[in-house]
């Protein structure tokens, strides 16, 4: 049992001058669960992408079963029995599950024609063996996330993988879904498969792993077993300093209802009801967090709140006025700000300058001295304020925003909304994919602005973020608000998780 299936020696990866991985050495034992942990940007995914043949290493060697291998592409890695399940699923929404599984690894008759029958049989065998149950004839777009993840794992098995790399598999799952996944992982290792798990969640690591490798800044800082490790030790190996991430919140007075949503129902583009009869309110100076598994209707709720999507029924009142059918422009004028989840796709115009990005929305809400002309002085002043207040690292306000780092872009996107003297901010995943320093900074800003009397509706897929910042938590499950919880010290993640899965709900 103790033989080595995979060995990595002296692996380095550079992206230009950026060091993603430096001199990585590790060994993975057969039929074990090996966790790779580290902060966002520690180089976990880069390392795994090299092992899976997606990136080419700048230096270093990989040995599989004691034999040196060089991968030109993922197929080479697959031939050596290495398969990877990416954080972002590699699926084709409009194709059936069967077609998804066959893609790139087709069984054919006469070399050209798809042999669906044989593929179906083979896949069914794998599903039976490892106890997966997935509907093969449904389109991928109709399945829930947890099932899609199973599809991905089956796909890797179907390609004959012995080593299965899972990149942050728990990020999209509920606590209960995570349990299911862990059961599957244990079952796989019992049947001789090796699982490499990438994660940054310590609890999970301690629960499931046989071996742990810790990465920090692209280097290995520890190779140990859970028996040797404690959460504190792992944390210190990961960040190298005390983890002090508890934000200091002061007791504050919460005012009257600013936003009141009543019986709101919203449909998605394809006519599915995504938000069902939702009612809630946000008071002045309050931070209301919205938790829920991705795709529970948060996106549609926000779009309808900001006038980007017309609700089927229901009413949205803001400062006592009915704003249900107001356009985004109207929302701007009413001093509602919005920080979108997708900062590059929705949050900014990559090829434009910081200034042009800053005055978006401002030009409607504040109006320049002459509302027809862009007042250069005023625009520059406001942009400089954003850059200074949010310590954005940039040469000048005329720098093209696309040349900044992710964290700095996010600071501009958040700063623009926070500096506009809005009364309500709808903030969606404000810290996705940015470094620790920037996260802390933005969290502080959210708390500060709420203390200044601005209401914040915080929608985040990181449960930890919602629990850290919110005064009150709304939990969405399947388009409904199943929980409206006061965020006290007694509230724990497990309870919120139950609400997120629909296992528990408040009676209205």
């Amino acid at each position, binding site marked *: 049992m103790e033989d080595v299936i995979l060995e990595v020696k002296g692996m380095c990866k550079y992206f230009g001058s950026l060091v993603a991985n430096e001199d990585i050495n590790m060994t993975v034992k057969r039929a074990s669960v090996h966790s790779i942990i580290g902060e966002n940007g520690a180089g976990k995914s880069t390392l795994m992408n090299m092992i899976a043949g997606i990136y080419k290493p700048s230096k270093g060697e990989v040995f599989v079963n004691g034999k*040196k291998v*060089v991968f030109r592409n993922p197929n080479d890695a697959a031939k050596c029995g290495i398969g990877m399940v990416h954080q972002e699923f590699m699926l084709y929404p409009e194709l059936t599950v069967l077609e998804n599984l066959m893609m790139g690894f087709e069984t054919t008759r006469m070399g050209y024609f798809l042999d669906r029958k044989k593929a179906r049989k083979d896949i069914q065998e794998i599903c039976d063996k490892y106890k997966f149950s997935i509907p093969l004839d449904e389109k991928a777009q109709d399945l829930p996330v947890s099932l899609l993840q199973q599809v991905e794992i089956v796909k890797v098995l179907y390609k004959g993988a012995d080593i299965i790399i899972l990149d942050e598999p728990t990020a999209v799952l509920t606590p209960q879904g995570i349990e299911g996944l862990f059961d599957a992982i244990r079952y796989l290792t019992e049947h001789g498969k090796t699982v490499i798990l990438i994660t940054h969640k310590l609890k999970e690591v301690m629960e499931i792993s046989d071996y742990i490798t810790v990465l920090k800044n692209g280097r290995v800082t520890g190779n140990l077993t859970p028996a040797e490790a404690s959460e504190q030790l792992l944390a210190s190996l990961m960040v190298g300093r005390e983890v002090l991430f508890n934000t200091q919140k002061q007791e504050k007075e919460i005012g009257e209802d600013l936003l009141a949503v009543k019986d709101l129902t919203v449909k998605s583009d394809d006519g599915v009801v995504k938000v069902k009869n939702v009612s809630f309110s946000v008071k002045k100076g309050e931070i209301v967090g919205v938790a829920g598994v991705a795709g529970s209707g948060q996106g549609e709720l926000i779009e309808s709140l900001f006038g*980007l999507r017309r609700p089927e029924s229901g009413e949205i009142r803001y400062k006592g006025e009915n704003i249900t059918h107001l356009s985004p422009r109207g929302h701007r004028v009413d001093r509602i700000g919005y920080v979108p989840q997708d900062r590059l796709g*929705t949050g*900014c115009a*990559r090829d434009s300058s910081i200034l042009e990005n800053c*005055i*978006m929305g401002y*030009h409607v809400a504040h109006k320049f001295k002459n509302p027809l002309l862009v007042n250069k002085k005023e625009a520059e002043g406001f942009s400089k304020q954003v850059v200074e207040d949010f310590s954005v690292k940039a040469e000048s306000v005329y720098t093209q925003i696309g040349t900044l780092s992710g964290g700095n872009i996010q600071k501009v996107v958040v700063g623009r909304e926070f500096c506009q003297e809005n009364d309500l901010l709808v903030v969606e995943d404000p810290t996705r994919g940015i470094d620790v320093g920037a996260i802390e900074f933005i969290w502080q800003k959210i708390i500060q602005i709420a203390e200044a009397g601005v209401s914040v509706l915080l929608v985040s897929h990181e449960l930890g973020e919602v629990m850290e910042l919110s005064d009150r938590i709304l939990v969405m499950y399947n388009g409904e608000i199943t929980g409206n919880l006061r965020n006290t010290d007694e509230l724990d993640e497990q309870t919120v998780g139950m609400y997120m899965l629909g296992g528990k709900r408040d009676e209205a």
Partner: protein
Amino acid sequence: MKLNLRLSTNGKLTVLKYLVAALLVMIIGSIIILSQGNSPAEAFKALGVGAFGSVSAIGTTIRWATPSIITGISAVIAFKSGIWNVGIEGQMYFGAFVSAVVGYQLLMPRGVHIVVCLLVAGLSGMIFSFIPAILKLLLDVNELISTLMLNYAALLFTEYLTFKYMGFDASELADAIATPDMQPTARLSVLLPRTSATTAIFIAIGIAILVHLLYKYTVKGYELKMVGENLKFSKFGGVNYKSTFLTIFLLSGFIAGMCGGTEMMGTFGKFRPGFATNLGWDGVMIASIAKNNPIAVIFISFIWGALKSGSFHMERVTETNRLVISVLQALFVLLVAIDYEALYKWFCDQKQLRMLRKQESGVQ
């Protein structure tokens, strides 16, 4: 107006890219001309003489630069905001036809008549551009295809209107099918005596400068630009994108229609079906070369005009077919559309791949 002539490294690269493209086009052109049994040197010389060699040559250059600027600006307005209005030619036909009819039918004092003709031309182009606009907004019909189709329809429909206006049995001769001559009060004055250059060039440059100012200083211009940079971003930033889309389409159509008007009031004097011979497409090409910069459109349009004027002379003097020039113009568009950075990256990747293969065969 102050022009910023200081170039960043990026700007220098752009200039280099255009020079390389121009050089390549000249080489390819020489080969084509040689293959026709003519001398490239003579042909290019004739081209130069035809463009700048005499007052009348310069006049012709200005004459052809005029519609190029206006259609170029019309295309810039659309493309800068990410809308593929390639129906400029069709919108031009409508503008031209209506202004030709108004120019003949109404009797007015000179100044007023010109303004009225120009306005009705713009309005007709605008109304015609309303069709693809509304189809895009309500039904998500791809504007590129709808405007392409409507171009063909516009050409045929204005021909029909001409017949209808003149009476169907007016003439069987294709050349004679045209509306009557416009009143002198509706004609623009000649710029250089005994040439085809008219004061329409001032209208054209005026339009270009106005559009430049629109983008540079106004809130609306900012919104138009940002819609093109990132539509989603602009939407949540409070830009009313539906009215902005409509503005873009209508403005682009209005300017295209005005181009039809200036053509009638300037050189032609009467509407002849099919008169535009790809003028709308010239605008599309120019906007794409100018990378949607209104001021650059003016300069490139003058080059365009020179090429057109020169090519007529070249054909007369050296028997080199002037179609060579139109092929080369399109080729130039193709060459400056290359993303050289991507090209370089691709080249490096190939090199790396070869090295990797070598490395691997060494291992095995």
